[in-house]
């Protein structure tokens, strides 16, 4: 299994994790960190330390930064729930914009610098934002694809792989956490050259308190070799509650 390093940042000081831990993929590493944060925060509070300035930085075994998981984001309720609970004047359209701006700024903060492809989409699968890594590997202009359907931006995805990708996104639109494994498409190899490769991806739906689908986040990891034999698998991700 791949090794992920979980460095703990307290303000500007980083406690490095030199050994790392094994997880099946980045998603599992994130879930493990997510589950660990509340108990660790409690112990920090008892010890008189401030957990709200801490974050776990998840890196791969080569030291590449994949994800930062801030304690305050895990421990605080979603800000837009609080805002929605306190409607101000001109509520409605402006509140929706505030919510959408908040979602976008959170997405950028979490995924801008990671070494996986990440996409924020509307429930209709229109691209709101794609991070730099995803755009580079997909050979797309991240500005030009805003508002375009995710199903249309990978121009070289055809035939059976396109069907698999469509199925993968359809599951997400239906509200499930969907997963695709070993989807063949172009990747950038270690030398930065375009090569035939495989992608493993997951898409998470984001729901509001009334269970309405607000949007989708996809993250996708490229590989130069298939991870499970090269046969594409599309499914609802294990552990999905929908």
């Amino acid at each position, binding site marked *: 299994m791949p090794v992920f390093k979980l460095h703990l940042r307290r303000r500007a000081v980083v*406690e490095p*994790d030199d050994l790392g831990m094994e997880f099946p993929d980045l998603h599992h590493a994130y879930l493990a*960190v997510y*589950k*660990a944060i509340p*108990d*660790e925060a409690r*112990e920090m509070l008892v*010890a008189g330390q401030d957990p709200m300035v801490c974050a776990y930085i998840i890196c791969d075994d080569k030291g590449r930064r994949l994800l930062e998981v801030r304690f305050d984001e895990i421990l605080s309720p979603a800000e837009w729930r609080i805002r929605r609970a306190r409607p101000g004047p001109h509520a409605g359209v402006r509140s929706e914009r505030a919510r959408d701006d908040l979602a976008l700024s959170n997405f950028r903060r979490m995924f801008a610098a990671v070494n996986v492809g990440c996409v924020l989409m509307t429930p209709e699968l229109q691209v709101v934002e794609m991070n730099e890594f995803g755009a580079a590997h997909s050979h797309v202009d991240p500005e030009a694809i805003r508002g375009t359907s995710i199903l249309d931006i990978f121009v070289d995805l055809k035939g059976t792989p396109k069907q698999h990708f469509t199925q993968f996104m359809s599951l997400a639109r239906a509200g499930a956490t969907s997963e695709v494994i070993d989807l063949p498409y172009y990747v950038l190899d270690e030398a930065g050259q375009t090569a035939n490769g495989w992608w493993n991806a997951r898409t998470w739906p984001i729901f509001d308190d009334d269970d309405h689908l607000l949007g989708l986040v996809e993250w996708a990891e490229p590989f130069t070799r298939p991870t499970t034999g090269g046969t594409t698998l599309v499914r609802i991700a294990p552990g999905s509650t929908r």
Partner: protein
Amino acid sequence: MLLAASEAPRKVPAHRDLICEGDNPSSVFVVLEGWACRYKVLPDGSRQIMAFMMPGDFCDLHIGSLEEMDHSVGTVTTCQIASIPREKMETLIVATLGLTHAFWRAQLIDQGVLRAWIISMGRRDALERIAHLMLELFVRMRSVGLASDDTCRMPLTQAVVADALRLTPVHTSRVLRTLRERGVMTLGSGKLTILNIVELAKIAGFDDNYLHRRIMKPDGAFQGGGRIPASRPIDTYLQN
């Protein structure tokens, strides 16, 4: 006598149940080689490990008195397990007073270990809990001749340690790193190395009195009711 009563030892692969919660207990298991654990799975699927058994330990001496298991026993590593059928255990207990006393004492010590774990869960933070467990396991291994002065085999993964101490694997990993950076112990590649037993015991608030038979105190040389004196090297503190 015990050997004669037990069935032929069998090899059990790692991560296999010897007996499950709800089963009707028919035999007492004895660990001859390897490690096993006593555990319970909660409705949410999480697992709480309640004890580790190492070579020489009985898994559940009293179990013949119960109709149904209220927990499970499973292997942590590949084990050699001997089984003593319930009826034979009862015969042994009735017929041999010395064995009865030995079993009773073993049960009482197991309960002492359980009390120590309850204290850890209720009153120690993550650093203290892990330090305490590692020290306890080291001392137990040493008492059965499976540890050198400062090293022993420790086949527990971080996930297993986490399940025993109600921590997450991530938190466990970070605490083990802290203990390593403080120069008190290292755990890796299936090996535990105690670098500074005095400091480790101080962190854990460790008092070996609950282990009773597993440590024999040097005659009259202990001060403070079993607490590790600061100046004693490990080989004078721990005697087989």
